[in-house]
């Protein structure tokens, strides 16, 4: 089961410290803590803890993306709205191992997809099917970039987060990775396209 999905920056943000990442969207599925921890903390503390843990993940992914791009020496291609396909083709991807305790109580794998100066991250449990997760992440990223016009200067990812919620409810319901062949996927994407016109 996927623990959470994040969209965050991988470029420098002046208001933040170096290496920090601004989380633009996050969705956690299910409790991210073991039973003992939940009993210890009140609901407010739990939310704070979750946000801090997600910030840690975002920072780690950001540094992984930066190092990976540095090592491969690839230059970021300038992409304008309308060239979503190109942006996703040029996207680089990888996976970060999150040790037990850093920051989640169990070991996790954070799959990331870097599209220009944003990253889409899925935090998966050890026995999740990473091949499937990779495919799901690419689909999610593609649909987000298209339907939220992320290549432009708008802030739709902040102001239309209900669209991402809907996407997740169809393609990753409650954090469940789905084995969808192209026909099933088509059917869901039709539903998504219908919702986006509202």
């Amino acid at each position, binding site marked *: *089961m996927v623990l959470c999905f994040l969209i965050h920056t991988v*470029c420098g*943000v002046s*208001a933040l410290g170096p290496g920090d990442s*601004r989380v*633009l969207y996050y969705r*956690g*599925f*299910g409790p991210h803590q073991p039973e003992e921890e*939940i*009993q210890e903390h*009140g*609901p*407010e503390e739990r*939310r*704070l803890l979750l946000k801090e843990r997600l910030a840690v993940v975002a920072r780690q992914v950001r540094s*992984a993306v930066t*190092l*990976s791009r*540095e*090592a491969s*020496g690839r230059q970021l291609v300038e992409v304008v709205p309308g060239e979503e396909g190109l942006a996703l083709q040029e996207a680089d991807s*990888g996976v*970060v*191992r999150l040790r037990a305790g850093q920051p989640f109580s169990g070991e996790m794998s954070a799959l990331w997809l870097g599209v220009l*100066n*944003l990253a889409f991250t899925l935090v998966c449990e*050890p*026995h999740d*099917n*990473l*091949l*499937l997760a*990779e*495919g799901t992440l690419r689909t999610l990223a593609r649909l987000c970039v298209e339907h939220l016009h992320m*290549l432009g*200067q*708008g*802030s739709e990812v*902040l*102001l*239309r*987060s*209900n669209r991402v*919620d*809907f996407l997740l*409810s169809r393609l990753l*319901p*409650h*954090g*469940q990775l*789905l*084995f*969808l*062949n*192209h026909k*099933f*996927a088509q*059917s869901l994407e039709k539903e998504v396209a219908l919702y986006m016109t*509202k």
Partner: protein
Amino acid sequence: MYSHGSESLIKQAREIQDSELQKFYSRLLKVIQGKDLGHEAVDSLQRLHLILSATKFTRRLPPDLHKKISSLVSSPAEQFQILGSAVLRETLPPSDQDMTCIQNNPSVVNSHGAGLLLVQASSTTPLSTLCSQLVRSLDSRHSETHSHSQTHTLPILNAILTHRPECLSEEQVTVLSKRLVDWLRYASITQAASPGGFFSGSRTRQPCPIAELDGSISGDFFTVLCVGQGFTEDQWMNVYAFSILRNWLITYHSVSNCNTADLAATARLQYSLSLSYSHSPPNDDRSVEGSVISMVSATSSSSRLLPPKERLREKSFQYCQRLIEQSDRKAQKRMDSDLQKACLVEAVCILDILCLEDCSLVYRVFPCIKALYSRLSSDTSYARVLLPIAQFYLNHGEVAAVDCECVWQLVFSRFPAELFNDPFLAHEFLRFVRQNIQNLPTKVPQYMRSFPNLLKFLAWDSPALVDDFVDLLPSLVTSGTAVELLHTLLDLPCLSATLVLQQRSVLLPITDPNTRSLQALDAFRNANFRGLFLFLLRNDAGAGDTIDRLGLLHELLNESVDWPRVVQCAQTVPVLLHIFFNTVIKVADEKLFAQLILVLLERSSLLLKVPNYKNEIHRVFSYHLLKLCKLHPSLVVDQSHELLEFAGTTSNVYNKEELYTHVVWALGEYLSLSCDSRCSVRHITSCFEGLEAVLFEITSSAPPPGGVCPKPRVITTLMSALAKLASRSHDLIPRVSLFLSKLRNVSRGGSVTWCSDDDDLVSIVTRGEELWSLLKTPGVAQSVLTPPPHVTKPQWHRDTNVATPLQLRTLTHLTQPL
């Protein structure tokens, strides 16, 4: 992509003043209290969501607003369900009692409300209630009357049972097992009635059968790899059921301790029965054109009489077999061929779980896995599927008495050598090794020798994988291969550069006079130097510790020292060296320690010239050299010849200051009779003379052109070492004293060429004077500079029988008048 506009929106959301916020709340309440909610309501709710989620500190809403939004979660429009639950996820009810109240009465069963409950539930009661409702809705026999929302119940249940498996009762598990069997095995095999096209008349269409991914008509039961124009409810449930199957089996089916001897007989009988079924004549599906006749259903024994868990196991087995069969077809779309790979991984993992639960299944499953392995082993694009297969062999190879040699050969030799640059494969490969680290050394003999190959992953992508190697490296350290491993670690940046060259060599054409080709690339392609690079790229250890022409190799790779990959790799080597040394101490004997010290000394000048690499490595070497010598002081006497050769070379003072200082200190400290009885006067004298010569040289002339003055620490260490050695062989004392008094005189003349800072000079001279006065009384000098070993033990200071001050105190006490 990320604009200033977004940043300022977030800033505004965080810094909104309370008065403005309250006004916004009341405006919002008015808007959403209306009958028909439109765009304004959506936008306002989104803004509220942004305000609440922008900070990590929770804001609470006014009670009436909170209540209204809670009611939105059960609104008929999905958009408001989503917005309502998104807002509620970011806040808390006005009072905590409300929260428990809401949680204990989950009247909402829609997907979004359930999601909210999952995230915020602090106890299992509301979740158990939710589970009962969901299971009840799934158990109903009238499945046709249910709306599309039923499909989300399985993911919700899966999310609950992942973290709170106790929420489902035994009875509910049984009910769900039965339903899962229905969906997995008995979903409809016809396409749903497609929405009417332009020419659809009132006549009903004949339902067409579902198809396989290559376009042919499907000949067996429905799976995730079947396609149609539209899908029925139970076909959707088939997809969801398979998606949660692995987690379900892991959670509710425990691993049994099976007695293989007992089950062997029954298992073999089953195996032979299944073989005989596969030779029976096919059923009448043969008339269907182009389809591969599926033998799965034909070979299954009647399982209707099995209890639900076992029945689910049987059906899961059949489903996985069918997926494996279906994955052999050539899918028409790229997305589907990717899905086939993912299905293969999932199928193999599920079969593994089933066999772990019931050993007798191994005999039925193994032929399937073996056939799959033969099909895929020659194609490295299936590497990520071959890893779970390798895991299966590791878990069950012994039970099935199968020879796994070829599997290990493929996994440990080919994968790292050919696929080191695939980040996902690297991650999964290293995770596979980590998870099986207890068994690998015994079950896979070539694992321990495969470190040159495994390190290719690290050399290519150090930042992502160093964490894994921190865990794995200790398992690769053995006394037999330790020296070779040390050399390999030190040359990791060279390996990194070589892999880059290997990739470039493939991409760039060989003869292209127009491009300015790299010198290093030319060297890589040059037949004369082939052997050097091939040594670095070797797969197995054992061919030799290192090569003779290492210096030449470093020169050839000079161009690569600023390549990002090489630099990143160089930064991980010190950490790995620390781990190496900390581990090798536990497995090594004196002979190996001696060899390691020699390697340290030899390699200190034989390193790739990545900026700062040498300094970092020397730091690690110095630390561990001292640690080794402290553990085994006799090593110093043993290796005194080599250590003295190093310490007697004046250029080392300037080039390898840190390491030099530590070597000299070790010599001074441990070259004594108390550390090793073989230490003779001759040893001490020759060491003394060597160090004396260096000290004379560096304090009588300026440093070589381009060099800096040696740090005071080197000089004082040399002086201390000489004093220590002299205290053990008193005829050397006059020589030291002479030098020290000369030093004092020289410094009176003002500044000197070998020391740039006046304060430093003062410290050096002061130390010299201290040593000089100490050496005036040789007996005292000996006990101070060469203390007997028991001085470091607490007993020497606390036991009245041994500690002189305490003895004196006792005597005084006794002699005092009563």
